[in-house]
Every structure is written in C-alpha cells, then in structure tokens.
C-alpha cells in the first residue's frame, strides 16, 4: 500500500479539478485578451473561477484577487513592493515578521535587509504560535508592514490572525499573511478578519502546481513586480494561465464547500493516528490539537533520527517529511524546528505527517503499524536509546547548532 502523508508540501490534484481544466488546454485555448471568439469564449469560465475564488475566502467586490504563479511569487510581490513604495519612495523602513515563516518570506526579508530595510523576526511560544501582544510591542512609527503566516506548514499551528489584523489596523500598518496552509484547510473569511494582503497557492488544496493568488484589500496600492501588458488590470502582466486559473477556482470550491464537515473528518483520522503514535514511549507532538490545522502532526521520537525514520517509512511506501538537518541539502536544521524545539531534539527527531481529505482509514491503520515497526527497528540501532551505560569514558560531546537570524 502506498500512503501519501506529505500534504503540507503538495497535494494530489483532485480528478474533478483535472476534468474542469482539460477543455482549456486543447479546445478553448484562445488568449482571453484577444478580441476574437477563440479568446473571448473563455471569459465565462474565467469569470466563474474568479467568483469561486472570491467566494472561497469571502472577499468583497472592491477587493482585488490577482492570479500569480504561486504563493512564493505573491509573498515576494508584497514584500518587495512594500520596500519600493514605503522604503525607497516613502519614509518607513521597518518590516515585522516571524522566525518561522516560509523561506519565500525569510529569504526575501534577508534580501531586503541588504537593501537597507530593518526587519524584526518575532519568536514563537512553546506551542509554535506568534502571540499578538508580541507583534504589537514591535510595531513602531517606522513600521511599513507586518507579515505573519496564518498557519505553519511544519506544525500546523494557527496564529491569532484576527487579533494581529486588528492591531495592524489600529496602528495604521499594512498587514500581510501567508495563507498557504490555511486556505482550503480551515475557514478563511476576509469579512471577519482584517488583512491587507493574503497569499495562497492551488497545489496545497488539490489544485494544480504553478498557480496561486494574492488578495489585495480594497485595491490597496502595490507596485507590480511583473511589468508588461494590461492583464489583471496591469497589476500582474503576462497571458492569463486559463486552465490553471479554472483549476484553482474549482479546487477552491471543492475545498471550501462544507469545509467544517470535511475538517471534522480529516481531524478524526489525524487524531486517531496521533493517539496511536503517542502510545509509543518517549514521543511527543507539538502544539495543542484544537489550535492546529486539522491534518497536521509534528511528532518527535526519542532516539530516532528524522532521516532514518523517513528512510524506513519510505521503504514502507509512506511519504512523510522531516525537518532533520541530515535530510536537507545544506545540513542546516529546520528553523521552525529550532524555534520551537527543546534542546534541538525536535530538529533531529521530528517527523511531519500531513493528511488530506483523500486519506483513508485503511491508510491510517497501515501507517500506524508500519510506523511502530520502524521506530522499534531504529531504536534497536540507536545509541541514544541504548540501555547499557558505557563502562567508562562515556561523556557526551558538547554540540551547538547554529541558528541564523
């Protein structure tokens, strides 16, 4: 049995989404900006996708939702344009973000620091959550933007976006949230929550890869990153990716209709899996379940190194993820794991399991069984789990992992 539990990385494209997209590859392939019928015939389907997108996050008609290639582009767009509009051509020079953002935020912030922007990277609490009062205390009259992710890709922990939004509104500071792990997973209602900008990406909710969006409140100012034609009202030039926009609209519709019911079903499977894995001795999971995206578990298994565990899971045809440094190209331990992990242990033993609405009960049963076998095997090899104490000279090497800010 093959089981995919890496849905926070990317998801299967829903067959209904693929079906919705297909006619727009080889039948209705016209450029929607053309005057002729080949182009204009795509307009009703595009308008439908736009409506589906606005409805999914409850955006108002005065707001803009611009289609981008992915959330990385959306995140770059907001940060770089705030730099252009408020630092280069304005009198503000400060951005507030967090230590646990996605690399598309952190790397862009590092780049902007080189351009003279001051960036504050807020810490998270032991649950992995950014607290609203912390955000408030770091906003100054030089702050142009606050950017805090809605939910964490690593832990699934949900940040107090409503409170942070209110603080930003009150202080007159722009507020951006990377909504990649929230949209399609938990209710996102932009009439209830104040945000100026929200990024999302279709492949996180069973849509295709290569398409995302940026919500921009009330036609808020934002210099374009992509200059060219007049597509998307001049905000983002380039011929519209018709099939993918239609696919994303459909994926959003499927993900958000009856979202509470779907969430409850995923959560029940997640909780059953989590409970079963926590029966193993010396394991812990990160963050309170009630404040987590319903599909995510980040579990630490004492004595079992992350890559070793992924290896065994992979041998059992189970796809999961780890923040273990040993499994990454640069050997840097995952910053999120370090930000929330006690004694660096989590950074080396953390395994992330993320379910989807396609995960079945039989798959959960299979994973429980295989996971326990893998832990038993690797603990059998493990020196840090070895029962016999060394006779002498068994002192442990001191080691410090470097955490970059």
């Amino acid at each position: 049995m093959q089981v995919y539990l890496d849905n926070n990385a990317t998801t299967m494209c829903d067959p209904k989404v693929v079906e919705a997209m297909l006619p727009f590859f080889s039948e209705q392939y016209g450029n929607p900006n053309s005057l002729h019928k080949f182009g204009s015939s795509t307009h009703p389907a595009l308008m439908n996708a736009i409506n589906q997108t606005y409805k999914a996050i409850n955006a108002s008609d005065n707001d803009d939702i611009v289609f981008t290639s992915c959330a990385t582009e959306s995140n770059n767009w907001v940060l770089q344009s705030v730099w252009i509009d408020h630092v280069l051509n304005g009198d503000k020079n400060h951005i507030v973000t967090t230590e646990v953002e996605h690399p598309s935020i952190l790397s862009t912030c590092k780049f902007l620091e080189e351009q003279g922007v001051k960036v504050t990277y807020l810490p998270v609490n032991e649950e992995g959550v950014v607290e609203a009062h912390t955000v408030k205390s770091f906003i100054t009259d030089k702050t142009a933007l606050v950017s805090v992710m809605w939910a964490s890709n690593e832990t699934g922990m949900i940040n107090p976006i409503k409170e942070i939004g209110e603080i930003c509104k009150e202080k007159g500071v722009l507020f951006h949230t990377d909504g990649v792990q929230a949209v399609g997973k938990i209710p996102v209602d932009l009439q209830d929550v104040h945000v100026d900008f929200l990024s999302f990406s279709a492949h996180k909710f069973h849509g295709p890869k290569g398409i995302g969006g940026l919500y921009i409140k009330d036609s808020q100012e934002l210099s374009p990153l992509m200059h060219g034609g007049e597509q998307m009202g001049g905000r983002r030039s380039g011929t519209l990716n018709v099939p993918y926009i239609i696919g994303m609209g459909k994926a959003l519709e499927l993900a958000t209709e009856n979202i509470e019911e779907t969430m409850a079903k995923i959560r029940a499977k997640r909780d059953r899996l989590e409970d079963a894995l926590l029966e193993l001795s010396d394991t812990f999971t990160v963050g309170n379940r009630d404040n987590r995206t319903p599909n995510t578990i980040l579990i630490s298994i004492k004595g079992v190194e992350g890559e070793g565990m992924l290896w065994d899971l992979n041998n059992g045809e189970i796809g999961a993820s780890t923040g273990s440094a040993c499994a990454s190209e640069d050997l840097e331990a995952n910053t999120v794991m370090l930000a929330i992990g006690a004694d660096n242990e989590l950074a080396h033993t953390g395994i992330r399991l993320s379910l989807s609405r396609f995960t079945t009960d039989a798959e959960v049963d299979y994973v429980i069984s295989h996971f326990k076998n893998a832990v038993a095997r690797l603990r059998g090899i493990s020196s840090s789990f070895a029962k016999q104490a060394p006779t002498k000279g068994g002192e442990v090497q001191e080691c410090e992992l470097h955490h970059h800010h």
Partner: protein
Amino acid sequence: MAKADMLGESLWDAYSNKVTTLMNNPQHQGEIFEADAESRGNKLIVADFGAESCGDAVRLYWEIDPATDKIIDSKFKSFGCGTAIASSDVMTELCIGKTVQEAVKITNIDVEMALRDDPETPAVPPQKMHCSVMAYDVIKKAAGLYLGVDAESFEEEIIVCECARVSLNTLKEVIKLNDLKTVEEITDYTKAGGFCKSCIKPGGHEAMDYYLVDILADTRKEMDEEKMKAAADAQAMGGGKFEEMTLVQQIKAVDAIIDENVRQFLIMDGGDMEIIDIKKADPYIDIYIRYLGACSGCASSATGTLYAIESTLKEKLSDKIRVLPI
C-alpha cells in the same frame, strides 16, 4: 550552475548500494556485555561520541584480548541518518581482527572507501561526508580508553577539514606556495571545504576550531608581512624596487631621500616641505607635496625647486615619479 544543477538530485539517489544495504540491514549492530567479555577472559571497551542534539551519536563496543591487544569482536549503536548507520557498521567491521594500535589508524576516508560500490564513485553525497567522520573519532576514543591515553594524542596534526582530512599545516603551505586568494581555490587544490562545508566559515552544521576563511586571511596576512619584510630588507640593502613597496615603505623611502638630498637646502632659505600622499597613476607614481614656510610663497617652487625635487626622487627611486605640489 548548469543543466545538471537545474533539478536537485535526491540525497538518497547518491548513496551507494552498500550504504543502502547496510542502512536497511546493519551487520554489527548491537551490544557486548561486560560479563560476557569477562567470561571469555577479554576486556570490554565502550566508547560514545557525538550527541543526539548534534544530530549524530555513536556508541562503539570493543571486546579486546588483553594478551594481544587484538579486537576480537565489535558492535555499535548509532543515532543518525542512513550514512551514519552504514558508516558505523563498516567502521565496526574494519576494527574486528585488528590490534588497537592498528585500528586507530582507520580514518573516515577508509570508512567511506569501504562503502563505495566502485573505487571511483563516492559512496555518499558531499554534504553527507561528515557522517563518516564520527566513525574515526569514536575509534580514537575507544583506543584512548583502552590504552589509558587522551584520544587526541593519536592526532599528529591539527585537522581542519575532517571530511577530506586536510591539516592546518598543509593548508598554510598550499596557500603560500600557490598564492591562493579564495576559499574556492583552496577547495580546488586540497578538497578541504568541498564536502560538508562546516570548515569553511562559522555557522555551519558543526562548530569547528579552525575555519578556512580565517586560515586564508591569516596566511595572506603572514604573506603580506613576509613580503613587506623582504621589501624592507631589500631597501636596507639598497636593492628594493620602489614600485613594489607598500605605501608606508614608499613614504619612508621618499622621506629618506628628501631628508638626505633636499630638505637642507629648503631650510636654508627659510622653507620646508612635507609629503601629503602617494598615489598610483599608471604609468606614473604621483607624489603630492606641500611647501611650508618661505617655500609656499616662492616663485621657483613650481619650477626650479620642483624640478630639483622630482629629478632627485626619479634618480634615487623610480623614473615613474611625478611630484605634484598642492
């Protein structure tokens, strides 16, 4: 960057078959108990290296025949990735049958070579080389425990790059001999810094005692000092080439010539001069001076006096000198 780099390779695809096999089924995993070793009249050594918080830890068991110092049996436990487990397994195997003194000569390079499927292809990707290093360190620790000496006493040289086992002395020598200016050049010449990259600069996966960036900077500084000393010595011997001197040496040399040949005449007329700056202006070397006292208002300071100063400096130091009064 090139086409091959456009899509990163999976780490696991770069593992040799031996690494994969041993990761799935290590041959020497386990423990040896003191009572069992004693019952056979042997001595048990248990050595730990690394820590879970570092991401890698290994425990090595040796059962040693005290009459011959030979390692009769060896087992391991390891917290780590596939490479760490496979390296520990091979390291354990390499120890069996050797004396402690022979075992201590096993290096991480031996371990990595033993994991290769063919001699030309590395067993693990570069960033995983550090996982085989622990095997080397834990052997030294075990040997130290058995022989009652400090594990570091087995290390004859200071090793900077653990992965490629390049010593501090070698690095300094190569930098000097080949006039190396960048860390990339050091890696090209020695392979140091080419694997896990921890030794390049602070902030890598593992903290190191020495970093290539510092060694390069210090060695370059030493080279500059040596060059300056050589130039000063040559100057003292009368053979120094003005163009190759440092700015300070040039100022000193110009001052010396002025003091010896010019200043006395200026002072006689109630004046003086000072050197403001020396700048390269290819093909010239411009010496900026300021006249002091009577010289500053003197009509010949821009003609005859200037010619006298310039021609003296040209003759004594370099044809390329131009003197420019400010």
